[in-house]
């Protein structure tokens, strides 16, 4: 009897217990799964927080959704990798200005037995054509993310329409980068991924990078402070502090210093 | 010979009581139809203050329905019930208490069952405690006060149900076959409890199909057949020299079951 009378009290106590302290100032960053999954933020953000006392909270979603969320005012900073969408975001008045921060590159990963025979190619459009010809399974993000948009640009550069194979060899996962890689590994499929996510990815099994080095695989990241005139709750001042730091020599060095298994994942290129 | 003389005195006393006790409840032309079935119809009866009225009849005669009509648990389709001189309304249960064939025990202790009934009727503090203690003692359940009510035996549960009904001090106690599923020993204790209630001035209306019980407890008898009043009157008269065929047949053990007729 005593115990079950106590239960509601315990529940009430749990509920009323202070939720995580928010005494410190913080900004909210809408970003992409590729930067989060690579572990970059776990390396970068503590350095900034220690310096300024400002916490950075990251919501990691696809580039498309990150932009939508930022348009709704649910974020102070947008940090993504799809330049045309970013420029439109600024042109529409949602962002103050866009700055380059860093780049890495996309790679095509595939199974060791390489059914399309594309391993070692440096021409990404030729590789994609081979995949289509061989009807080798290709796992696409299919989620309107930065990587997905880059992939679609490459297919059209290869003058190949992958949607002919939709449902047979061309498969849209509708998921984030990591989930798509899990599926690709599981199905023995090819997939386009950013190099950083791939290097940090823990479930490679016998998948490996088959195509890399084409200049068209260049992947630029940009950062934008959300326009406080659209949404008054946006902390533009604090957000600008972060942007200023990340493009400063200090911030750029911190990006360059981040390595996984001895490999540098992102290359700073702010002007 | 002395027994006969005593009986005669009791009988005449009963007849006098029946005539002079003021009516506590009166039904006129009472009827009840549910889904096209006329379960009770054209019932006229008077429940007199301080008397024990037993409702008799074969299975399906409408005894339980009549009891629920008097208690306001079912709405009357026809006729009226006057309770303490006023039409039975929203406060039908005020001053009445009912005990069901299968006692409804709250999932609480014996004492908590009593306290709940008392609390609902607005009894607080020492008065509630006093009444609960009195009810426990009356039902002979003191030693079980802390036990969950639903682990008591059938007889104990029914005693608790009666004590709970009496705890709030009702004028009228309605009982629907309270001993139907009990053994003779348990039945005897229930009957003693009912006798005690009567002795303290509570008016009793009880449904039974047990002739012996009727003889032991009834001052007045109401006999139902097919939802109609076949005969009513003092128990001494009705059970020994009935006027109606139905009661005669029932007393001879020829009338068991009736089914209500369906009428538009």
């Amino acid at each position: 009897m005593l115990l079950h009378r106590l239960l509601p009290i315990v529940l009430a106590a749990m509920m009323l217990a202070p939720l995580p302290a928010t005494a410190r100032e913080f900004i909210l960053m809408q970003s992409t799964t590729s930067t989060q999954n690579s572990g970059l933020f776990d390396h970068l953000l503590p350095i900034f927080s220690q310096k300024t006392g400002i916490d950075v909270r990251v919501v990691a979603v696809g580039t498309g959704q990150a932009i939508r969320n930022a348009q709704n005012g649910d974020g102070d900073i947008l940090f993504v990798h799809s330049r045309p969408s970013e420029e439109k975001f600024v042109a529409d008045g949602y962002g103050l200005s866009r700055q380059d921060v860093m780049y890495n590159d996309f790679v095509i990963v595939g199974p060791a037995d390489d059914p399309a025979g594309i391993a070692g190619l440096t021409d990404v459009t030729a590789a994609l054509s081979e995949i289509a010809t061989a009807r080798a399974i290709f796992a696409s993000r299919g989620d309107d993310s930065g990587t997905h948009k880059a992939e679609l640009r490459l297919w059209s550069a290869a003058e190949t329409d992958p949607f002919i194979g939709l449902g047979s060899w061309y498969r849209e996962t509708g998921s984030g980068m990591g989930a798509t890689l899990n599926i690709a590994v599981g199905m023995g499929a090819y997939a386009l991924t950013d190099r950083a996510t791939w290097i940090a990815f823990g479930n490679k099994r016998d998948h490996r990078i088959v195509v890399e080095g084409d200049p068209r695989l260049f992947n630029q990241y940009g950062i934008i402070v959300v326009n406080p005139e659209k949404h008054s709750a946006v902390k533009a001042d604090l957000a600008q502090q972060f942007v200023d730091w990340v493009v400063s020599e200090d911030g750029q060095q911190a990006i360059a210093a981040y390595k996984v298994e001895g490999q540098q994942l992102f290359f700073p290129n702010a002007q | 010979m002395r027994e006969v003389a005593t009986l005669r005195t009791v009988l005449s006393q009963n007849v006098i009581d029946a005539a002079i006790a003021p009516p506590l409840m009166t039904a006129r032309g009472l009827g009840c139809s549910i889904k096209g079935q006329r379960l009770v119809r054209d019932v006229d009866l008077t429940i007199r203050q301080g008397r024990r009225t037993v409702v008799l009849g074969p299975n399906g005669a409408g005894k339980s329905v009549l009891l629920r009509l008097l208690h306001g648990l079912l709405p009357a389709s026809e006729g009226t019930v006057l309770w303490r001189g006023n039409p039975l309304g929203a406060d039908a249960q005020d001053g009445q208490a009912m005990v069901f064939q299968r006692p409804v025990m709250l999932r609480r202790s014996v004492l908590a069952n009593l306290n709940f009934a008392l609390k609902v009727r607005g009894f607080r503090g020492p008065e509630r405690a006093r009444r609960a203690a009195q009810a426990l003692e009356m039902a002979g359940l003191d030693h079980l006060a802390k036990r969950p009510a639903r682990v008591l035996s059938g007889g104990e549960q029914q005693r608790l149900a009666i004590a709970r009904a009496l705890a709030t001090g009702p004028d009228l106690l309605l009982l629907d076959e309270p001993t139907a599923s009990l053994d003779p020993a348990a039945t005897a204790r229930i009957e003693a409890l009912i006798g005690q209630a009567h002795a303290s001035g509570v008016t009793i209306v009880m449904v039974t199909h047990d002739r012996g019980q009727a003889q032991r407890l009834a001052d007045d008898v109401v006999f139902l057949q097919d939802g109609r009043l076949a005969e009513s009157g003092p128990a001494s008269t009705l059970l020994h020299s009935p006027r109606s065929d139905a009661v005669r047949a029932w007393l001879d053990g020829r009338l068991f079951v009736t089914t209500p007729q369906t009428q538009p």
Partner: protein
Amino acid sequence: MSLVAGWDQALSEIVLLSLQVTLSAVFVSCLIGLPLGAMVGAFRFPGRRPAILIMNVLMGLPPVVVGLMVYLMLSASGPMGVLGLLYTPTAMIIAQTVLVTPIVAALSRQVVEDLHQEYSEQFTSMGVGPLQRIMALLWDARFSLLTVVLAGFGRAVAEVGAVMIVGGNINHVTRVMTTAIALETSKGDLELALALGLVLLLIALLVNLVVMTVRGTAARASYA
């Protein structure tokens, strides 16, 4: 499990937040759902059947849909944006409350209705008023209702879709067990994801054990 064992600080933070969010949501759901279910279970009123149907249908609300609805409400450009609740544990509690309340209401409606069938005439006879009736039914059905509460807890603690959208899976702020599992899975760290899943299962087991033990001893002590 060694992966989890070597992660004390972060893990305990996530586990505590999971419990806090889910227990709070279940608590609020009970405050709303139990009286609601009891009223629909015990009283007859026009529109009762549609009300039951709606409650039963809402039990199957997809978490992602709830997450989206709550996101649209709490977004800076939504009607409740000024409160600044998006991407906070409070937002996650709101979303899970929306998910769990229909479960508590619909299941408790059934439990209370069955009990009321038994008590109805006795209560009318005793002169029990509507409020007393609801309170007494809920109290007397308390042990069956514990199972209802556990069902709600199970749904909330295992849910990822809604808290991911409205919480944002922000490290140290809104990361709970399920979103952490989703994150580790997407990093391809399947061992850690699985280990976290086992921890979640253990927590659910622990909560169930505590509640069932309490229920068992208390039930034996107060009714059979």
